[in-house]
């Protein structure tokens, strides 16, 4: 299967999406065979939107998200095909991020394509915007994008923060890594020229000093300039922390992760992720480890910051009721493929894949009589060398023979609503077709 979905894509994206996943396939080598963890996933993330990626354990949502930054270990992982196109942006020069006609009131504009300078070519798919494929990008260029243009927040901030570094050190690293030019400007350094001293400071600003240089910088007369640099970094760190509404950031900076509560740690992670004002934020179950009252606070914060920075967010979660509060559009994943993709209101008002319906019905609600929850029978199939069949067929209550013999692909059923199910688009050829009236189990 190639990019089947491409032709039928109906989303009316006003301008080029910030990222497009095209027929992504990530497999894993295991004892029993090749596990097709992600098997032909395609979706776009529009500029400034929050896209929810929901599904149960092992559906491939986290692997998809991690592929954006190539955080999937290979081996045992195998990049089996597909692309993740990403279009880096920069702040709109006309309005300095305030929002104007030129940037569609987004405050950011895509960078012109490096090959055709905006004229449109094969590389940028005739959009004229700089486009990179994150799956094939050289490691060095990827490092520049990581933490700068694309940032990630993880489920467990206790594990994602280095326990040996103070909050100040964790966050200043990001600035040294990606904002060394601004730091140099802060302390009045030119990008070139000056003596050995200046180049030493320049290296310090991008964390490339040698041990001896560190010693030299710690001694007068260079010490005062170095401290100036440090103050500049500290200022930025404090600003980043203050933005996540951490009380008394100057105090928190000197703390270590284990001295902070779970909610505080998650704020530090968010501060770190948003420090460089990324185009895309990947949030992998960011509130699963938190208590509900704290979770609500963090969600509010993410939403607020996202609106202020106009960052696009890919929000990974297993919790449909949460995704409903947070996301603009929702993609439901099952067994390595997308089952349904629609705007949030549409998918909750009109769920059209039997799996989505099953998931929604399984959540206990006040109206359910006790003991009468609609469970989805069975469990997720093994993804070792799966046959060309609907992955949900073995658990689907409406299944027909055709579901076992061919693989449904995503097709639109309404504006902004795509489903991969034969109930909505019958396959060519005869045979019984599945329908909601039909019940096999």
């Amino acid at each position, binding site marked *: 299967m190639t990019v089947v979905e491409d032709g039928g894509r109906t989303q009316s994206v006003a301008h080029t999406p910030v990222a497009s996943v095209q027929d992504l396939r990530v497999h894993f080598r295991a*004892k029993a065979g090749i596990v097709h963890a992600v098997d032909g996933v395609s979706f776009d993330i529009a500029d400034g939107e929050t896209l929810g990626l929901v599904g149960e354990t092992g559906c491939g949502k986290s692997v998809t998200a991690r592929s954006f930054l190539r955080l999937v270990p290979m081996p045992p992982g195998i990049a089996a095909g597909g692309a993740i196109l990403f279009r880096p942006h920069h702040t709109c020069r006309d309005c300095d991020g305030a929002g104007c006609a030129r940037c569609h009131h987004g405050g950011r504009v895509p960078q012109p394509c490096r090959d055709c300078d905006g004229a449109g070519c094969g590389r940028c798919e005739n959009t004229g915007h700089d486009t990179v494929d994150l799956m094939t990008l050289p490691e060095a260029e990827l490092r520049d994008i990581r933490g700068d243009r694309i940032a990630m927040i993880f489920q467990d901030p206790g594990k994602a923060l280095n326990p040996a570094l103070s909050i100040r050190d964790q966050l200043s690293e990001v600035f040294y890594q990606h904002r060394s030019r601004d730091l140099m400007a802060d302390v009045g350094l030119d990008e070139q020229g000056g003596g050995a001293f200046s180049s030493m400071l320049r290296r310090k600003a991008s964390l490339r000093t040698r041990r001896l240089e560190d010693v030299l910088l710690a001694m007068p007369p260079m010490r005062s300039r170095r401290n100036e640099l440090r103050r500049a970094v500290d200022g930025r760190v404090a600003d980043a922390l203050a933005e996540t509404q951490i009380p008394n950031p100057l105090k928190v900076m000197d703390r270590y992760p284990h001295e902070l509560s779970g909610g505080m740690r998650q704020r530090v992670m968010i501060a770190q992720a948003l420090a460089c004002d990324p185009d895309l934020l990947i949030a992998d179950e960011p509130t699963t480890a938190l208590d509900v009252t704290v979770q609500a606070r963090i969600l509010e914060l993410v939403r607020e910051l996202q609106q202020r920075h106009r960052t696009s967010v890919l929000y990974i979660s297993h919790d449909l009721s949460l995704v409903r509060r947070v996301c603009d559009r929702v993609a439901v994943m099952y067994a390595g493929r997308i089952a349904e993709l629609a705007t949030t209101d549409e998918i909750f008002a009109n769920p059209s894949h039997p799996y989505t319906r099953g998931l929604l019905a399984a959540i206990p609600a006040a109206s359910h009589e006790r003991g009468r929850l609609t*469970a989805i*029978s*069975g*469990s997720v*199939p*093994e993804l070792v060398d799966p046959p060309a069949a609907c992955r949900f067929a*073995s658990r689907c209550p409406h299944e027909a023979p055709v579901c076992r013999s061919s693989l449904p692909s995503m097709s639109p059923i309404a504006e902004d609503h795509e489903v991969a199910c034969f109930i909505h688009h019958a396959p060519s050829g005869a045979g019984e077709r599945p329908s909601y009236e039909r019940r096999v189990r």
Partner: protein
Amino acid sequence: MVSESTQAPALTAGDSALKVRMRRAGELSASLLKNPTTVGGLILIVLMIAMAVFAPLLTEPNTPDPYQMPRDWGAIAEPPGTPGHPLGTTNVGGDVLYGVIWGARTSLRLSVLVVSITVVVGVAVGSLAGFRGGKVDEVLMRIVDVFLSIPELIFALAIAAVLGPSFRNIILALAVVFWVKYARIMRAQVIHVKENEYVDAARVIGDSPWRIYRKDVLPNAITPVVVQATLDMGNIVLVGATLSFIGLSEAGIAEWGVLVSEGQAGISAGRWWASTFPGLMVFLWALAFNLFGDGLRDILDPRTETTR
């Protein structure tokens, strides 16, 4: 009632607990034998143990004590290849081949004795400390700390020296030194395993502490001890040979360390064989058990085990 589909292959009606356990043991051994270095170690171990077991058939046992080197006063310091003495003789007329073969028997005796004593004592002490906790744990672990504060070799050397030079005292000295390690490993394992909810589950059922220890704690805690014991089967011979080498064993017995020690004076005179062959055996013995022990660790590691 809906039931979930299963991932394990369908079982036939004739399945029983015994069959399943046998199959699992088979799977474990199969994965153990996948690694060529482990197989190499295993082959070496089998060969050397066979050599030790069949020593009386391979060479005529010395009388009255077969563990004493026979003396052939007519062939002193003969080089390898001499008729009747394929590996040569020592400077007191001892047959090197006899020393190599009966030395394997001595080594096997040494390592089996020391490892079984130390494992039993160490596991008992470690389990008691870890399982009971509290004051018992504190007292036992302070004792262990005292033992651990003295370097292994020097401690063994001191004990053997105090007890007087004899092979039995070497066994004793090694046993006194080595049990501490097992006690430490076992205690840490027991404390870790005890945290598991299946131990709580057994308590809720109302099972007795002893049976909980036997069924839930011990089997899940013992693996690292088994691996360490395998490695120590080799290491103990190495340390034992060291002690013998510096003269803490009786002179004239068929023991590799003693032979190396007695033969080393001749090396400068060109009589390399008297210490080289026994030395090589010590090396092979230690190597074989280390290779096998490493392989064992890989397949028995609980982390890799749960994913299988």
